[in-house]
């Protein structure tokens, strides 16, 4: 049972650390991110409170209220009803790996199935039981590469077309190692689909080279030469991948990637204003002692029956202490289950179909937008999956404001993260978008372009 602190206990704790009030504790958090003052009058009944709260909540709009062309790392896919139904079964409904894991054979089996599916998707040998989100998984990849070389290689080379928030998370992780250099994603290196400038940065001091596939701009780039260049210098290569695209594209494992990480949100997990999501972390067998997080293995019990266990736990922090390569000993169990159920329901054919629909619809949209006066594709020569960049005749913020009047959520305003991409919009199209939706979007773009 959850026991909240009494006012006396709170006073006592504040006294010990020398802070005047709870509010004072949070002054370091910018005000706009703090929990808002609800201003509810005292003595309301439960019925009254729920009606006040519903009114407040109605100020939010969800992706279901709009036709959404917003992606940039989180995608609005259809989720079969059975996913939620299975997720909410009492036997599964906990976010954690149980503390006596082997007693929960069902949970371990689900994680084992998840791991098997992830290796199937990526063409890699091993998957862990998952991380919090794609950004964490990417940072753990950098962490693993650093520890694989025992700190002797100091450079993490990042492509500028890796998700900006993932790069930020990698930097946050790496600041603990004061001699590590994270580079390659500067504006000067650029976002050209030709990775030549990035490859020039790879040297014998490079622990990891990380690229995204499809990249943050939705582009499908052949990374064969990057992998060769990295391996020639003895460095590891990490791919940040989009799982939906794996229904159509050559998997990272076939490129020779050492690590393939990504966000599993597109696999049956709702947008939910940003989380909980699902970090996918896969690698090659030779790195299995260095990978973070839980790992479920299949074995037989003393009667010879199939059974599941947590395996290779000696690399984890609760046993190896400060020598472990990561302090993450948990996983995103419920979301991993969602991805497992989603993929099982779709099957191989259904999954390919989703990828194909996304691809075809995105290309239909791109073609029609490119025909509009004032609009053009930013990378017309480079193939893309379900996301693409358009140059707009006006600032994206202005266009998106107009689109909202039509109940359309426009694409991501790239100038927020890339100063060199002023008036560039990243448009995502999933299977949920109809041809009619795309036609409406194109028409609204034309309108705002003319104003």
């Amino acid at each position, binding site marked *: 049972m959850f026991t909240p602190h009494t006012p006396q206990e709170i006073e006592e704790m504040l006294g010990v650390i020398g802070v005047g009030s709870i509010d004072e504790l949070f002054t370091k958090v910018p005000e706009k991110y703090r929990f808002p003052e609800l201003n509810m009058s005292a003595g309301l009944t439960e019925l009254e409170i729920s009606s006040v709260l519903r009114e407040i909540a109605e100020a939010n709009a969800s992706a279901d209220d709009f036709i959404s062309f917003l992606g940039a790392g989180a995608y609005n896919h259809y989720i079969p009803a059975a996913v939620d139904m299975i997720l909410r079964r009492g036997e599964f409904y906990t976010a954690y790996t149980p503390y006596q894991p082997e007693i929960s054979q069902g949970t371990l089996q689900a994680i084992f199935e998840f791991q098997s599916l992830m290796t199937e998707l990526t063409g890699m040998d091993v998957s862990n039981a998952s991380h919090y989100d794609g950004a964490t998984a990417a940072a753990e990849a950098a962490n693993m590469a650093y520890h694989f070389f*025992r700190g002797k290689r100091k450079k993490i080379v990042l492509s500028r077309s890796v998700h900006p928030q993932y790069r930020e998370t990698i930097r946050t992780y790496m600041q603990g190692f004061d001699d590590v250099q994270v580079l390659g994603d500067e504006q000067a290196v650029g976002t050209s689909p030709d990775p030549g400038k990035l490859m020039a940065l790879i040297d014998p001091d490079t622990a990891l080279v990380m690229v995204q596939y499809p990249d943050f701009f939705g582009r499908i780039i052949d990374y064969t030469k990057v992998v060769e260049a990295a391996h020639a210098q003895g460095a590891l290569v990490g791919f940040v991948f989009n799982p939906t695209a794996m229904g159509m594209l050559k998997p990272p494992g076939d490129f020779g990637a050492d690590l393939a990480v990504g966000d599993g949100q597109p696999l049956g997990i709702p947008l939910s204003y940003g989380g909980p999501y699902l970090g996918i972390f896969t690698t090659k067998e030779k790195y299995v*002692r260095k990978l973070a997080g839980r790992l479920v293995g299949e074995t037989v019990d003393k009667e010879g029956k199939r059974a599941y266990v947590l395996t290779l736990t*000696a*690399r984890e922090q609760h*046993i*190896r202490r400060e*020598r472990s390569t990561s302090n993450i000993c948990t996983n995103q169990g419920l979301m991993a289950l969602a991805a497992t159920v989603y993929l099982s329901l779709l099957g191989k054919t259904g999954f390919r179909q989703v990828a194909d629909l996304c691809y075809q619809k995105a290309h239909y949209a791109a073609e029609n937008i490119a025909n509009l006066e004032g609009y053009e594709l930013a990378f017309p020569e480079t193939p893309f999956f379900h996301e693409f960049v358009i140059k707009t005749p006006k600032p994206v913020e202005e266009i998106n404001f107009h689109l909202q009047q039509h109940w359309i959520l426009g694409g991501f305003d790239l100038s927020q993260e890339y100063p060199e991409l002023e008036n560039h919009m990243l448009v995502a199209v999933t299977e949920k978008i109809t041809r009619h939706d795309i036609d409406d979007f194109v028409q609204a773009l034309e309108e705002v372009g003319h104003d």
Partner: protein
Amino acid sequence: MNIPKELKYARTDEWAKVDGDEVVLGISDFAQDQLSDIVYVELMVEEGDSVNKGDTAATIESVKAAADVNFPLSGSIIAVNEDLADAPEVLNNDPYNAGWMVRIKPDDLSELDDMMDADTYAANIEEREG
């Protein structure tokens, strides 16, 4: 418990054997027995590295624990036992011969004087066993 007379021992259960002007290092029979089945050995150094007394030579994982092997003296690495990576069970079966871990050229052989002889080590183990 097998505690060869000719070796020197550290409190953290490493053994050292003087071989000409080189020293060979490994873990004791007592150490392997305490760890139980060893499933993985990672050598943290390679040929040519310079190491200081107290540095980590290797990490050992058994079915129930993970442990570090530390250098009882400073020097440069002459050779490491690469075979252990594929056959970590050798540390359980033959800790004093096939289970050798690192061969080192010591900077100062007198650093070995801080280590225990076989009898002192035997008494030390007995004390720890209670």
